């Protein structure tokens, strides 16, 4: 699939894609920023480069209808999840490699603030495990967390109803919380 040589695109398609990418970029950026409650958590989340990487991968995506905002967002959320899982694998591999760990000002800041933390690899694993139990649930999590889509939009992206999507999402959320809280993973 991916080894197909790239076909030249018509100009309209390029324009549509650029518009869609801009939209996604803007939206992801805003979300990454606006949803931080720094006073409550005392902790800053830095997702800028994640957004960037996601958008780059999204640009390479073929066969996506870029005129459909909802589908583009859903695809972005999906890619973001994949990017994270890739990173988690890479990190686990690095954990085995020798070499000093660079201590940065940022990590110190993070440690000092003493806020609840979630192990990143664990989170990515949890998301992967959730996908095995409830693929749609995992997708709703990603669409909601990464792309801040409304239930109505999610329903359209999944060809489902709002009520159904809400149920899946609630289930996924409870499942994830339990797993991250160190509860039984079943």
């Amino acid at each position: 699939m991916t080894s197909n040589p790239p076909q030249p695109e018509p100009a309209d398609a390029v324009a549509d894609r650029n518009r869609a990418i801009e939209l996604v970029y803007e939206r992801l950026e805003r979300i990454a920023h606006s949803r931080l409650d720094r006073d409550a958590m005392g902790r800053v989340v830095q997702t800028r480069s994640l957004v960037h990487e996601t958008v780059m991968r999204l640009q390479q995506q073929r066969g996506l209808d870029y005129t459909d905002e909802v589908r583009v967002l859903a695809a972005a959320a999906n890619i973001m999840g994949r990017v994270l899982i890739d990173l988690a694998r890479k990190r686990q591999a690095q954990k085995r490699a020798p070499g000093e760990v660079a201590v940065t000002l940022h990590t110190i800041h993070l440690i000092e603030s003493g806020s609840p933390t979630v192990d990143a690899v664990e989170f990515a694993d949890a998301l992967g495990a959730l996908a095995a139990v409830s693929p749609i649930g995992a997708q709703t999590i990603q669409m909601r967390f990464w792309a801040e889509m409304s239930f109505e939009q999610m329903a359209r992206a999944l060809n489902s109803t709002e009520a159904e999507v809400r149920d899946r999402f609630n289930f996924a959320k409870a499942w994830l919380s339990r797993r991250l809280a160190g509860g039984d993973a079943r």
Partner: protein
Amino acid sequence: MIDDGAARAESLFAAARALPGEQREAFVRREAGGDHDLAEEVLSLLRHDTPTEDLLALQARAAAADLVRADEQGASRSIHAHADEPAPTHIGRYRVIRELGRGGFGRVFLAEQDEPHRQVALKVAHAQASPTDRRRFRAEGVALARLQHPGIARVYDAGVWHECADRPYIVMEYIEGLPLDDYAAAQNLGRRRRMALVAQVCDAVAHAHRRGVIHRDLAPKNILVGEDGIPRILDFGVARLLNAGGAAVTLARDGASLVGTLGYMSPEQLSGDPLLMDTRTDVYALGVIAFELLTGRRFLDVSTLSLTAALEAARTAPTARPSSVDRSLRGDLDAIVLHATERDPERRYPSANALGTDIRRWLHDEPVSARKPSPLYRARKFALRHRAATAAGVILALGLTVAAGYTLDARRSERQSLAASLNALEAIVTRILSPLASKLGSLDERAELLAIIGPDVERIAAGSPDNLMAQRIRARYLSALSDVEDDRGALPAAMAAREESLAVYRRLLATWPNDIETAHECSLAMVRYGNLLASENRADEMRALYEEALALDEDQVRRHPEDLRLLSNLYWSYRRLDELHRSREPERSRALAHHAAAVADRMSAIAPGAWRTMEANIESDRRLSELAIADARYDEAERRGRAALQTAHRLIAMDPMSRHIQSRLALAYSAAIKPLIATGALDDADQLVDEGSVSLRFIMSDEVDPTQRLVIERMLFELRLAVAEEREDHAALLRLLDDAIALAQRLMETLPGELPQREWTAGLLLARMDTLACLDRPVERLTDFARVLEHADATQALFANSPRAIGRADNWREIAVRKLEGRLPDDAFRRAPSTPLTSR
């Protein structure tokens, strides 16, 4: 794999969740039937149905951030592991001399280039850099290549090192010099010179911001001052690029999301969130640098603290006030530094440009904006909230909000709100009128702003006929309107507004003859109206206005003998009339030049370091040098020319971006070179012409208006031609003439309405005829003859309504014919000396 159990759990969970809490357990057990595991699973999940969505989302994002960060650290770690590879001997066509340093991205070498021969700093990416890293590295190169400013180390070249894993590299200007703070200490600079340096750094930073680059690590160590005294910023390695939408891409890959130099980092930078950082992060660092240069102390001394304590101190310590170190810094300098280092970026100067402008206001003894009261502050808040991408947008937003605020105020008829409205209006009008306005806002934006406030200005002025401020704002408003109309080419409208503005000023001056502000502006209005009349060929009225301005300035200087602005007005009034009388009444002209020189001397006695004084002195020395040449007093001419040049260099160091000062520098070079030509010191003259070309071209970055560049090029050509003529090197002269004629062509296209440009072209063509005669090339000479005739025809067609232009063109024809007939010796035509008088 999705088993049935999971799917059942999902639907049972949803159904149970719809019920009130106390009924859930019974419901689940009932529905699960005998499936005990299923029931327990669903009940366990229901117990975890507590966290808010926000908390989970936040944790998810935090985890994501951790992963991304770990990835970056991994990249930096793998780089350190390979850092000990030996220095290469060559990279591309550059010969490596030694290593200068290394960072997360790659290594920096001092290298040598053959053509042109120079030393360069060459930054090459690590071999292990990932494709993403390489892409970013190249992005940095491209971004930095867009930065062309005398205050920023230049990027010469970028390429790929094919012999070594196709590593990308960037070739940059290699700067030898001292860090900013060491330089100031070594030179024992005074307060003004120090602040002038900071203002120059602000220009460079503003340039980068306009091109979408944030530095993020401004600190004295990253700003080197070379022998020329110009500070240059290096190391944009941690810079961030803003794309068109304002979204930023981080260039830093040092493994830390937090990069910078503790002590110069803004609070938002310390928070580690790149989203909070914008151009105002650099403004903060500039404020810290200003503090340290002024006081000689660290803004934040973290040397004795542990890293974590230092971070805490940087985030929470109260902002230092320069006057806490040195009480004489109270007032403007305190205000400027405090305003630049506000913790809340929303309260800081909105841009490096605004900070630089304010520092210059202080240098020019004008009130600084950091101390202005609330209307502007409110407007700034608004502008910042709307994050206009360009300075123009900020200005517009500023003006519009002030206007909106004012309109609200104006509806209340209390006296107090009249004052508030006046303040607001004044802020707008002053901004539009300021010499920076044309740089900051487009013509249309300025016009729009004027159209918005116009009716209110008129209404308030009509309602308060005895209020000085209300009337003066109207006069200023009309003056701004006149400028805008003039820029649009609507001369009649420009003249009408100017005339009305002047009428208001005259009335005000009759009532308040001791008001310096009014007198100053009235004098300016007379001159500006005179200039407009000149372009209409109403020379007598123009002269009358210039004379009237002189009388006013003399009277005002008697009233306020120490006021620099009034003295400066008087200086230029003398000079203006001197220029007017130059050809017809040389004796009066000479007397006026000496009056002017006396005023310049007085200015030096009162405020030697002020830019108005320096400007008057440059012009004064230049003019006296010219007169000395005419009297064959060459020693004096040379001394004065040198003095003019020296002062001009000091002045340009204060404000290299000012168009005005660039012209002064060009004129000063001309003044220093002409005596050398006159005395036959041609080698010295050549050398100085070269020096002048280099420094002028260097100063004229791409920000400079192209017309200005052409005009200065012309000045340089005139000097080169004069030297070549004196040398009687005809072949060289011919080559120069060809280049000069090409330039003249462009000048005529750019400034189609200017007769002097056409006159220069004619002079060059006639000089070419002479040169060809000396080289014995008669056929080509005939061609030039035809070109002169053509040029004269075209000029007469273009200036059909100007008797003067028609007379001049007839004159060229006649000279050309006589030259061809051999009735004139070949050196009989000399180009008329041209000294553009560009005051105000």
